[in-house]
């Protein structure tokens, strides 16, 4: 292998024929440098128009990046791509990612990724160890939950094996099915668990002892050390989290990394060692609670004010994981939608059981019924909330309050997602990110909205920065203070979407945690712009990448390669699904509702002005080199990114120049 960091081979498995082949990772390097980037290349080359999520031809593309499994902090993640089962109005190309220790294990087993096509005649799993892969019978695993499936394989092969598995939801092609590893590391969005299920693929078990080379060991060691030291608190915010003394004592609460390489005390990631079960009486449960799973018990005095209590909430979260269901969809989309319908007097019972969000029995009945497609209502919900509303013919208006677009519940958007605090004008950026994506655009939205809000004194009263300072620091990356100005309205909102678009690709391709990067704000420098050694915060990823791989790129080279990925993904959407500006604008009605929070500098809640927003869309298309009328890359732009052949293939679907 010419470059450091990479394992050197990709596994190609055709489950229809049982053929297992190995391909050199070099075929895609350096341009398609890992994860999401490499997946886009594979998708363009191998997903013909007309391919649906459950077609055997749909490749399930599971890829690590060069940094995965190395000493690079926050680098343990793996991306999953392919035609998505959750996608709406059509199943189209999208992506997801997961943490834990599976990706690093795969690389030590000699592979940078696994691309699975076809459909096995009967349930199987893949057994991957040190440059070998066999297709094994999964007859005895089929029907098992994600935890039992992992345990069974680990009992057979060893405790140090890592298993990425689906549960009953994936087996039953539930469109909100996850595939996951450990107790809380899921490829959550996208319904890729259902794609796995459609291939009769229960799990992928990996174990490896092979080394990964490092191009410049001394520099890489130093860069990683500096980056880890600079990292602040959870989510890249200024403050660190604390454990809850009561929960430490009562439930064995402790910090647990949700991803290999994580080096901060996180607000979201907690492991519980001893939680008394409520439904499974007499049992003591253990497992991780990350991110949105903390919402299962319900929060008093919030929009999510059901009250399951901690123990039952924990148990329901673990049941959802084990069954293989998407936590975000359940908690931010499905449950609030059901509650709206109940409060509106539209719906009181589901498949014979009364809707009672304070009852753990109801939650278990609901979730297990969805994953097993039991009853008319829960079978409809197995298609995801958006499709269920259409199938059942109810709750269409309420849906618009919770689901911005593409079949996904709100996420850092200032409207349907009432957990995350982001007000106007920052959610204009979220709205544009939503408009340009095929899923919730969260690895971009974390970088902008979450970062600014987290560093403001509103979310961090003690350690946060004043607005003037936030504006000044952000000008280092956006070129203008307007882009992060709380009183800037619609001005300067396209540029951050453009910039964070590339950064999002970078995170999902290298791979590094999307909550932490890019590093912009800091408490450790006088001017509060993140720096370590002679590196500016936004170039941390590039320094880790070059010292590890030996690929001699500067910041501009890595950003250009990352933007190329966005161009190719868009070209794929145009070629296979005729994506256009009309689709992008379908997010507008959702944002035309009044926001949930209030910007104190404005003093009142605001709604989206469609005409002003369309001008921001124009600016974005111009920055990307896309035709403003169609929202599609021009021939000229694709050529600029060395995508000449792709431009030719798109023919008259695209125009020469804007």
């Amino acid at each position: 292998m010419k470059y450091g960091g990479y394992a050197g081979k990709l596994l190609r498995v055709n489950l229809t024929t049982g053929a297992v082949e190995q391909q050199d990772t070099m075929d895609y390097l350096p341009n398609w440098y890992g994860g999401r980037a490499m997946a886009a290349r594979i998708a363009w080359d191998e997903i013909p128009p007309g391919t649906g999520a459950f077609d055997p031809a749909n490749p399930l593309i599971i890829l690590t990046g060069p940094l995965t499994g190395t000493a690079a902090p926050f680098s343990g993640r793996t991306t999953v791509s392919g035609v998505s089962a959750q996608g709406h109005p059509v199943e189209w190309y999208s992506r997801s990612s997961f943490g834990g220790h599976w990706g690093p294990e795969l690389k030590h087993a000699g592979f940078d990724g696994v691309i699975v096509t076809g459909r096995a005649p009967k349930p199987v799993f893949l057994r991957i160890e040190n440059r070998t892969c066999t297709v094994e019978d999964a007859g005895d695993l089929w029907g098992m939950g994600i935890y039992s499936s992992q345990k069974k394989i680990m009992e057979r092969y060893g405790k140090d094996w890592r298993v990425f598995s689906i549960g009953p939801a994936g087996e039953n092609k539930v469109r909100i099915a996850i595939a996951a590893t450990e107790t809380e590391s899921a490829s959550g969005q996208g319904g890729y668990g259902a794609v796995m299920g459609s291939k009769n693929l229960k799990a992928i078990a990996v174990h490896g002892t092979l080394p990964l080379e490092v191009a410049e060991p001394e520099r890489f060691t130093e860069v990683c050390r500096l980056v880890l030291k600079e990292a602040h608190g959870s989510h890249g915010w200024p403050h660190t989290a604390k454990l809850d003394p009561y929960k430490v004592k009562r439930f064995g609460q402790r910090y647990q990394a949700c991803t290999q390489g994580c080096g901060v005390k996180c607000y979201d990631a907690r492991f519980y060692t001893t939680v008394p079960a409520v439904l499974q009486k007499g049992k003591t449960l253990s497992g991780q609670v990350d991110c949105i799973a903390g919402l299962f018990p319900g929060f008093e005095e919030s929009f999510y004010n059901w009250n399951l209590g901690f123990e039952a909430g924990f148990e329901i979260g673990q049941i959802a994981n084990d069954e293989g269901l998407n936590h975000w969809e359940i908690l931010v989309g499905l449950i609030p939608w059901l509650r709206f319908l109940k409060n509106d007097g539209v719906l009181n019972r589901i498949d014979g059981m009364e809707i009672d969000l304070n009852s753990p029995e109801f939650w278990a009945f609901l979730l297990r019924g969805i994953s097993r497609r039991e009853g008319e209502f829960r079978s409809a919900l197995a298609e995801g909330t958006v499709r269920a509303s259409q199938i059942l013919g109810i709750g269409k208006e309420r849906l618009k309050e919770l689901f911005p677009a593409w079949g996904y519940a709100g996420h850092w958007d200032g409207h349907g997602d009432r957990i995350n605090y982001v007000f106007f004008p920052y959610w204009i950026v979220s709205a544009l990110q939503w408009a340009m994506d095929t899923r919730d655009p969260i690895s971009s939205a974390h970088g902008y909205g979450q970062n600014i809000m987290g560093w403001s004194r509103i979310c961090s009263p003690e350690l946060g920065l004043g607005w003037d300072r936030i504006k000044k620091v952000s000008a280092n990356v956006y070129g203008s203070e307007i882009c992060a100005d709380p009183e800037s309205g619609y001005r300067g909102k396209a540029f951050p979407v453009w910039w964070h678009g590339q950064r999002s690709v970078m995170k999902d391709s290298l791979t590094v945690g999307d909550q932490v990067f890019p590093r912009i704000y800091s408490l450790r420098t006088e001017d509060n712009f993140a720096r370590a050694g002679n590196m500016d915060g936004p170039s941390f990823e590039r320094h880790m990448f070059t010292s590890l791989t030996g690929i001699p790129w500067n910041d501009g080279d890595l950003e250009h390669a990352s933007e190329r990925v966005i161009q190719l993904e868009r070209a794929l959407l145009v070629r296979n699904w005729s994506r256009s500006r009309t689709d992008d604008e379908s997010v507008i009605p959702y944002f035309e509702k009044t926001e949930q929070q209030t910007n104190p500098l404005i003093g009142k809640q605001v709604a989206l002005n469609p005409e002003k927003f369309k001008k921001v869309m124009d600016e974005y298309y111009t920055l990307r080199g896309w035709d403003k009328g169609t929202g599609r890359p021009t021939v000229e732009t694709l050529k600029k990114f060395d995508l000449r052949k792709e431009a030719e293939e798109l023919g008259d679907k695209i125009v020469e120049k804007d």
Partner: protein
Amino acid sequence: MVKLVVNSDLCTGCLNCQTVCALVHGGRQDRSASSIRVELEIFTGLNTITYCRQCEDPECRNACPVGAIQRDESTGAWKIDYDICIKCGECITACSYGAMFLKEEIPLKCDLCNGEPACVEACAFNAITIGTYER
């Protein structure tokens, strides 16, 4: 003199200690080159860190038939002199803590990175800290 002070109860399973140890000592990401190892318990969350105590009267040193394990008087680390080592593996068998490892027939042992252990700096949760003592 220094030694590692380890509290496995605080280990989050990030493995930063293990990856950085391998990197510093072998110049690549080779798990078998690491002298500190974390055994993950993914369903109970109670991980275990295996590490060298730099014992006062070390079993590894006592078991070595050729006297290849010698104390670094500046840090207190017991280090293998590979010019003397005959790769018999007696030290690995002797260590009650299982804290010595075999890598391609060569024994591996924590050398405390000349007094500034990379694993300590990489652990953000104080599961691995450094303790000083007088001799």
